[in-house]
């Protein structure tokens, strides 16, 4: 299920963006998470701000650009995918 990240998740993600020096990129676009029912790992997607509103209301099969995965307090994000 696609959803907006909560405050804690957003902090972990923004820290990663900040570390790479692309904090502004995260501000201009939206981040959404896809909860995988079978594990605690969440897929991280970057989507246009316009798309964010649509997918949270009508759950799609797939949305945006997958940039990595998020665990409880850590992440596996791929900077190359964004840049």
């Amino acid at each position, binding site marked *: 299920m696609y959803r907006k990240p909560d405050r804690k998740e957003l902090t972990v993600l923004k820290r990663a963006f900040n570390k790479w020096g692309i904090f502004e990129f995260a501000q201009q676009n939206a981040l959404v998470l896809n909860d995988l029912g079978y594990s605690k790992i969440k897929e991280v997607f970057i989507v246009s701000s316009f*798309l964010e509103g649509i997918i949270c209301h009508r759950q799609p099969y*797939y949305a945006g*650009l997958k940039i990595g995965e998020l665990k409880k307090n850590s992440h596996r994000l791929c900077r190359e995918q964004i840049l």
Partner: protein
Amino acid sequence: MKTIVFPKTSESAKLAKTFGYDEWLISRFIEYVPDINRFLETMDGQPKQYIRTNTIKISSADLKKKLISKGFQLKETPIQDVFAIEKSSFPVGATTEYLLGYYYIQDLSSCIAVEALDVRENQIILDMASAPGGKTTFVAQKMKNSGCIVAIDINSARINSLKFNIARCGVMNCCIYRMDSSHVTALNMRFDRVLLDAPCSCEGVIMRDKSRKTSHTTYDIEHCVLDQMRLIEAAVKVVRPGGLLVYSTCSFAPEENENIINSLLGRFDIKIEPIGYGINGLTKFGETKFHDAIKNTKRLYPHIHNTLGFYIAKVRINN
């Protein structure tokens, strides 16, 4: 509409034998394809290859430099960011630039369909039957990754290739729904632009798959027409007033092309707008006469336009 089959003649028999087609197909081509001999000769060759720069990731000038340094010869086309491959020292899909998503291998005819869609930034676009994503990714780059593209396909194997191409090209404004496109009204959304590249009998891609010269029947055309009718009726209903619907197929069959658009006229408040490429759509086929506005739709032929066979209609929805 039942598939029209014309009486066999000595000319159709001779051409069918020379070029290896089923005679019913040749007798139809004779009716509407200009310069039939050159057409059949061209269809026996290989299609021209085109690439489209993915401007989300690189500019056309930079990509051109990179590919020329690898021994490619590129030629400009009437469509911005699309190049014809004149010479390549190795397969176009085997470069690092391709894997990085700097370009997409796409026929010029498909690019013309997207060009006709007249996409602007921040619009809501629907792409019905979207996999494998050539047109979807082109729309995304025209929108500069803004707004929203709703891509629909029913086949999960084809959706996997759509997902791969979206990721490769860095598209962020697209969401995919796996569903029958004729049920698109269930999404309860209205779109500024709708692209329907309908499933068809694929007569236009015989250059890529020569087995199609004899492998399809009149039944296949009739089957496709039923699907196309369902899809276009659903498409018209979800375009917002003043929005555009582009209908395209890679078929030459008038039943799948002019006939489909003609069926909308009179039932919906629409206008067929002209397109700047190709030759006019047919206004008559056999005994069937189409509305005069159908001439604004366009046909692309391999021997005239150096593309695969294609049909494009640009429909403005008034109300």
